[in-house]
């Protein structure tokens, strides 16, 4: 997939960041408004896929030297760890905890252990979809 479309490439440089920012926003907003780990992860993937379309896999690999398999594993472990952490506090598996804090700049903010679980989901989704696309893309 070697293209040399200057328009596409220039546009991609901007659009990718917009999508990425939107992905991060939608991920963190997920607990209160539409969004969450799945959508956030998929949007992130689509940003990277766009980069791949505009440039090529090798270039993208150079920009983002990530091992997506490791990412999947880390995500799974994080999700499992969050779920099992409740055992330490002697409450049933998968009990979440949350509280509200006054933080500088953010004001009243809620910190929720479900967020950690969601980060795990996010990592797995990005890891797996990127693994799939990258392996198929590289296969000749």
């Amino acid at each position: 997939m070697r293209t040399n479309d200057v328009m596409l490439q220039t546009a991609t440089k901007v659009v990718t960041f917009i999508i990425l920012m939107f992905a991060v926003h939608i991920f963190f907003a997920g607990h209160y408004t539409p969004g969450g780990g799945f959508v956030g992860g998929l949007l992130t993937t689509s940003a990277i896929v766009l980069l791949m379309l505009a440039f090529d896999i090798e270039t993208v690999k150079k920009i983002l030297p990530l091992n997506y398999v490791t990412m999947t594993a880390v995500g799974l472990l994080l999700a499992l760890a969050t779920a099992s952490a409740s055992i330490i506090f002697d409450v049933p598996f998968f009990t979440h905890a949350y509280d509200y804090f006054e933080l500088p700049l953010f004001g009243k903010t809620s910190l929720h252990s479900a967020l950690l679980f969601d980060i795990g989901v996010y990592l797995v989704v990005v890891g797996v979809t990127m693994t799939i696309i990258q392996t198929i893309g590289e296969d000749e």
Partner: protein
Amino acid sequence: MEIIMSVAIGFLFMAAVYLMLSKSLIRIIIGTGLLSHGAHLLLLTMGGLGGNSPPVVAEGVSVSDYADPLPQALILTAIVISFAVTSFFLVLAYRSYQELGTDNMDLLRGTEDYE
């Protein structure tokens, strides 16, 4: 609306099953894709299509006005899974096509003398 949707779901399922029963690999994969779309809509319709507001807590919306969140959560899970499964099928299909040189399901069967 639910009745029309039910008929549409039946139609999706019918098309999906018809495609899956054919001999060509790629039609089978497309069939599974259609099948999952049908299943998602089925879940949504079973829960009822009512509800005036998305299932996101908002000021001034009474509990009964939210759309049913449970089918939505189930579908969300199903969408992602069906994506993973479809891509798995896709790779399985083209790898076996590369190795075996055919996409005819009648030729893709174990030999008689396997043990």
